[in-house]
């Protein structure tokens, strides 16, 4: 019952899916105990942050049917908001708070402006306008380098509690020393979990259902009495705010913010890939997609390395499975996904009996 | 060419996705006549027509046209073989003008002037909106366009799904005449129709479908004469209702 409440009644509708999600959650919780090495922690935190980012994009794309290429722009607002505040005000919680508020403010204003101005036009035009807006902001970030550090980005420090040197208490639990790194990992995990549950609630609320209706047939939704532009804008703003918060998390976790970690088109493509592979219009899809892509990003190369060494004597094949070509195979996987699991892995799991 | 029915279906089953929709359709459409397919909503009439046209592939059973098996043949091949189709949702191209819609249907190139004239007289609205995008036509006008499109060139077999829905009585009357004329030109028609009056004034033979199966086959005369049979098969109680 409590569980149902937390998950807002969004059923897994597949025992395998339920198992996988439970497994991922548990894995993220115990991760530091199993492996507190930097790569594992980085991956864990990146997964948490991207779950929020991808899920918020799902609210837009999967639930409302809005194709936007400006989602990482909002992620960037959050990251730069926190980063600039921390850089200029020093490492304090107040700076993070202020940066967050400022970033949310900017995101809301920009999202409302884009939404009201252009959510009326055809989907493809909207996509192009967001693409234009996003590339404009990206250039702005590189030109305003006094503020943003340009291409180099900003490196800054975070409150003491989150620094590796900090110790939450003396001694260890199950062999784990609670350093600031672990504290910030759990901070990221908790905030992400809360944000995820909030989004899960929203898509399962009456509001979420209206978004689905608009995706399906906006004309009829309007005829039923739903003001489509208002709902779309609301959805756009909500998703933008969630992405902004994910950006703040990322800035705090990485202690570095630059175009490549926050705003670049590459991240936008990553987000798309994750969402589609996981499954659109299902929040759980975001989790699965993010986990798979991250595992691939961190470990697929190692696997391919082995493969290449095994085939080194053959023609062309070692070239194709050289570790640098991991993106190629991800692309292939992606196409196969769109092709064979149109509803993503979640859709596939749910389709199984 | 063999004698016998122009079109025949024997034990046809069709699946849509995982759903088993048609579960044994038997049907014979005699050459030059009009066969009416009746049945309640969701019975499988439309699915039957789509299966014949090749838009759905039968999973079992035989569809024969002029004695040749055509089950699973692609729709364009069927169309070239002389089958025309008026779909239930009319299938007009909203972005194309009425003229372009008609042009596409006249595959051999130019229209035969007489035939076009005949159709435009039958459906005057089409003449009026000849150069307008078909999307702006009224519901009934779209229906007219769809029918006209199927008739612009002589075809051997017309598959027509509920042509009278949405049409004003005057047009329906005119259409009855038009179909009589078609019949004289040896065009065979397989008609799905809910409007029993229309169906009964044109049909020669009937088949009734229910739950994806043919539940009755016979002549129209027989059915019109037998009120009890009508009641049983079709629940034709509209008259007494309101």
């Amino acid at each position, binding site marked *: 019952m409590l569980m149902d409440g937390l998950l*807002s*009644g969004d059923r897994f509708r597949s025992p395998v899916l339920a198992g996988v999600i439970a497994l991922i959650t548990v894995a993220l919780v115990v991760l530091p105990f199993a492996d507190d090495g930097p790569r594992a922690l980085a991956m864990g935190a990146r997964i948490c942050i991207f779950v929020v980012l991808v899920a918020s994009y799902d609210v837009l794309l999967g639930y409302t049917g809005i194709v936007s290429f400006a989602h990482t722009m909002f992620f960037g607002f959050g990251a730069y908001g926190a980063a600039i505040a921390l850089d200029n005000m020093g490492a304090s919680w107040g700076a993070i708070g202020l940066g967050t508020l400022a970033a949310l403010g900017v995101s809301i204003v920009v999202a409302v402006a884009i939404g009201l101005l252009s959510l009326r036009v055809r989907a493809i035009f909207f996509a192009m306008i967001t693409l234009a807006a996003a590339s404009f902001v990206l250039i702005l970030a590189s030109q305003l380098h006094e503020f943003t550090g340009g291409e180099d980005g900003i490196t800054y420090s975070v409150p003491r509690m989150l620094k590796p040197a900090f110790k939450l208490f003396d001694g260890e639990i199950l062999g784990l020393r609670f350093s600031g790194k672990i504290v910030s990992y759990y901070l990221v995990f908790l905030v992400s979990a809360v944000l995820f549950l909030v989004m899960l*609630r*929203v898509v399962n*609320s*009456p*509001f*979420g*259902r*209206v978004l*689905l*209706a608009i995706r*399906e*047939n906006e*004309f*009829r*939704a*309007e*005829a*039923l*009495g*739903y*003001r489509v532009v208002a*709902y779309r804008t609301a959805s756009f703003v909500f998703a933008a705010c969630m992405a902004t918060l994910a950006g703040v998390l990322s800035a705090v976790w990485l202690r570095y913010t630059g175009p490549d970690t926050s705003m670049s088109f590459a991240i936008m493509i990553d987000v798309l890939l994750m969402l589609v592979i996981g499954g659109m219009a299902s929040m759980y899809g975001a989790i699965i997609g993010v986990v798979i892509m991250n595992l691939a990003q961190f470990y697929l190369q190692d696997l391919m390395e082995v493969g290449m060494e095994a085939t080194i004597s053959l023609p062309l094949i070692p070239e194709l499975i050289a570790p640098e070509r991991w993106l190629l195979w991800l692309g292939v996987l992606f196409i196969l996904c769109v092709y064979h699991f149109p509803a993503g892995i979640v859709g596939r799991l749910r389709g199984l009996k | 060419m063999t004698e016998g029915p122009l079109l025949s279906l024997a034990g046809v089953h069709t699946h*849509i996705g995982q*759903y088993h929709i048609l579960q044994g359709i038997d049907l014979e459409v005699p050459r030059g006549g009009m066969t009416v397919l009746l049945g*309640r*909503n*969701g019975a499988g009439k*439309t699915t039957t027509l789509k299966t014949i046209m090749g838009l759905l592939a039968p999973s079992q059973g035989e569809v024969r046209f002029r004695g040749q098996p055509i089950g699973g043949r692609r729709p364009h091949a069927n169309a070239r073989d002389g089958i025309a189709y008026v779909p*239930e*949702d009319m299938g007009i191209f909203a972005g194309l003008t009425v003229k372009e819609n008609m042009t596409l249907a006249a595959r051999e190139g130019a229209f035969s002037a007489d035939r076009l004239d005949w159709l435009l007289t039958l459906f005057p609205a089409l003449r009026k909106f000849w150069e307008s995008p078909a999307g702006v*036509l*009224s*519901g*009934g006008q779209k*229906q007219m366009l769809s029918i006209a499109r199927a008739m612009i060139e002589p075809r051997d077999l017309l598959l027509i799904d*509920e042509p009278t*829905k*949405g*049409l*004003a*009585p*005057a*047009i*329906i*009357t*005119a259409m009855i005449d038009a179909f009589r004329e078609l019949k004289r030109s040896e065009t065979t028609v397989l008609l799905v129709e*809910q*409007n029993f*009056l*229309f169906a009964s*004034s044109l049909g020669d033979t009937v088949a009734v479908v229910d739950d994806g199966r043919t539940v009755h086959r016979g002549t129209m005369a027989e059915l019109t004469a037998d009120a009890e049979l009508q009641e049983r098969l*079709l*629940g*034709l109680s*509209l*008259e007494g*209702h*309101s």
Partner: protein
Amino acid sequence: MTEAHPDSIPAVHPVLETRDLTIRFGGHVAVSQVSCAFQAGSLTAIVGPNGAGKTTYFNLISGQLRQSAGRVFLFGEDISGLPASKRALRGIGRAFQLTNLFPNLFVLENVRLAVQARARAGFDLFSVANRHRELIERAELLLDQVALLGQAYNRVSALSHGDQRKLEVALLMALEPEVFMFDEPTAGMSADDAPVILDLIHGIKARGDKTILLVEHKMNVVRALADRIVVLHNGQKVADGEPDAVMGLPVVQEAYLGVAPGSGQAAGS
């Protein structure tokens, strides 16, 4: 038959009124200066040849199209400038001639959305939709009324044409509007199923406080239900009055029913 007569209700304002309502598309005038008032408890059939402007007239009333001239009033208030969604919330309900649903959602969800619109719960972001039992029960009740309860958990795209028509009506019922506008509700419906819908319409009428507009080509249906007929022809209102009187008019006989005046027999009935 228990009919509520329009004049049995003290009519300060007609529920719905159009004054000189006009729309032009380029050079073509699809609806031309149509003035009409509709009283609560009445069922008005709007008839006319194909392309006469009936659906367009509906679109103007419910806000899908914006008039070139003229006004629409609801309870005496000018609503000509409002978007469709606002009109829907104020009580103008509309079923479409060509089916217009949410194809990939469950049948139940379609109705639930309409019920929810009526309950104005759309901007409720933080409750769980599935826990609004009352909305769901209401939706189920409505599905039952149109004999679609068995299909509640099918996707709309898998419904046959006739079933989609029924769902279309269920959505309208769910909105519980003051003004019901049906655009050929029984087109494509089998003789078995049409009565279900006609019964429903009749039931609404019987309550006596709702206003019903019905576009219908089947004369027997019109005769059975309507207590007033408005005839549109080339966008203009050419007749308006008691059914029998209107049906007898030569213009109707000729232009609409397509019979020589006096012969009295119409094919569509």
